[in-house]
């Protein structure tokens, strides 16, 4: 195994891209990453593309081939493989790309993530996203994805006394950061009152506890660390890339208030990167629902169980706090184009570690952690990045 670095990163704005198709978004993100790395398509040896459900969202499968084709790589016979792990598809693609370079099979690969979600009506999108849960034993009986998140939240409230007002602090922080990110889906701040009084999706989750339906693409170029400096002065090292899985359906879990897959991925990632939670300068945590972010904060070791929300209450999660959280805006404000999200989190961390994040720049950021989950924290993937 050899070290792997990110030598280029790029992404589209997240949001409702009425004029852009799946391939437009993928190609835009990919070309930005190549441009950032200062390389041409002919330098790419393989593509790993994260995508959850283009087959359902736009009727297009074989997404790897589509992306490679329209990025101009069909001419070079570059292998392009789609990777799917529900909302963790992006991080799963990065994990695949990481393994491909670390193993020595390839020296330079492009990792992308893309989702085009707004071509369908709301209830159809809800139905497709529910495919991340167990279709036959959860969704068939009427469980939406937010309903599953809501049951996690309800149980957490029951076990630890969390209030809706406390839980609302997480979207408030995410929106505060989103307002500083010109590529975010939502660039406005919100208040606790706005969050708790928003339309109810699945009690106790209002629409402001849920990430939006977004279009978007994100991409990074990976290279083996020993050649990274040939392409950039500021390569970012992938110090850890770890995936872990749990039971698919929520009802199989012993507890709804902790995620064994996130705990496992976090522990292994810290070990692999030789880091501890206190060494992390910023985190991008999967906040598809506020409750998932709260479990993420605790299960990644940043707070004791039941006490994660204190970090929000103490103001530590703002970009200038002790644990800058979702400074991109997170899934909540930056947006959640499901297949792109995991790659987009890493694009943000790359920008932060390169000190290129503008108004939301975290001071002295040298180590960042990205936490991307699929399903009800079924698949958890953790990446730790650091300045080389």
């Amino acid at each position, binding site marked *: 195994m050899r070290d792997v670095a990110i030598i280029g990163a790029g992404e589209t704005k997240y949001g409702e891209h009425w004029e852009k198709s799946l391939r437009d978004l993928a190609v835009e993100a990919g070309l930005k990453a190549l441009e950032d790395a200062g390389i041409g398509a002919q330098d790419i040896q393989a593509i790993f593309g994260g995508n959850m459900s283009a087959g359902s969202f736009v009727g297009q499968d074989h997404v790897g081939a589509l992306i490679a084709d329209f990025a101009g790589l069909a001419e070079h016979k570059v292998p392009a493989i789609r990777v799917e792990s529900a909302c963790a598809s992006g991080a799963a693609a990065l994990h695949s790309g990481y393994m491909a370079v670390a193993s020595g099979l390839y020296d330079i690969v492009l990792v992308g993530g893309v989702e085009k979600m707004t071509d369908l009506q709301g*209830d159809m999108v809800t139905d497709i996203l529910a495919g991340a849960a167990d279709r036959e034993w959860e969704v068939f009986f009427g469980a939406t994805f937010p309903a599953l998140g809501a049951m996690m939240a309800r149980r957490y409230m029951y076990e630890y006394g969390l209030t809706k007002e406390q839980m609302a602090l997480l979207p408030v922080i995410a929106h505060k950061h989103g307002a500083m990110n010109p590529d975010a889906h939502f660039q406005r701040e919100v208040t606790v009152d706005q969050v708790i009084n928003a339309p109810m999706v699945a*009690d106790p989750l209002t629409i402001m506890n849920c990430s939006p339906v977004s279009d978007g693409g994100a991409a990074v170029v990976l290279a083996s660390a020993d050649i990274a400096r040939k392409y950039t002065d500021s390569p970012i090292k992938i110090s850890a890339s770890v995936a872990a899985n749990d039971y698919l359906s929520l009802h199989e879990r012993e507890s709804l208030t902790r995620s064994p897959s996130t705990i496992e991925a976090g522990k292994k990632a810290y070990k692999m990167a030789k880091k501890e939670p206190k060494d992390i300068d910023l985190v991008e945590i999967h906040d598809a629902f506020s409750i998932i972010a709260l479990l993420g904060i605790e299960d990644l070791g940043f707070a004791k169980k039941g006490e994660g929300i204190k970090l929000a209450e103490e103001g530590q999660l703002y970009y200038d706090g002790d644990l800058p959280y979702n400074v991109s805006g997170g899934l909540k404000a930056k947006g959640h184009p499901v297949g792109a999200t995991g790659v987009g989190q890493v694009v943000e961390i790359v920008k932060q570690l390169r000190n290129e994040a503008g108004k939301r720049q975290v001071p002295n950021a040298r180590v960042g952690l990205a936490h991307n989950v699929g399903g009800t924290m079924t698949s958890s993937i953790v990446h730790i990045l650091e300045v080389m």
Partner: protein
Amino acid sequence: MVVPRFWRERRSRYSLIGTKCPVCGTVYFPPRSVCPKCGRKSVGKMEEVQLSGKGKVYSYTIVHQNVIGYKYQKPYVMAIIETPEGPKLTGQIVDVEPEKVHIGMPVHAVFRRIAEDGKAGIIQYGYKFVPDEE
């Protein structure tokens, strides 16, 4: 029109048929062909077991934005039910005022229409839950 995908699950959905690992005794619902705890030792030996349909609310939510097929039932209560046999099940709680549902509430399974394949397709039946009589 989809028939076999629903048809093949009918026994578990109609009659709560799960499986039990003869090695460690753990009961699973829906049925599994391998016990996650005992692995190879359980392969080919998992036994059918019928759940009683009794249970308690482990967690719940009131769904306001539905998946396709549930438009006319919203807002509806979804819950995870813990059964005395061990497994937890996801299902709707019906014939109840949503605001009266609480964690720990005793419920039992009933037989209801779950979904239907359009106006002309197959009606899919299965379990939901109702509160026990007070």
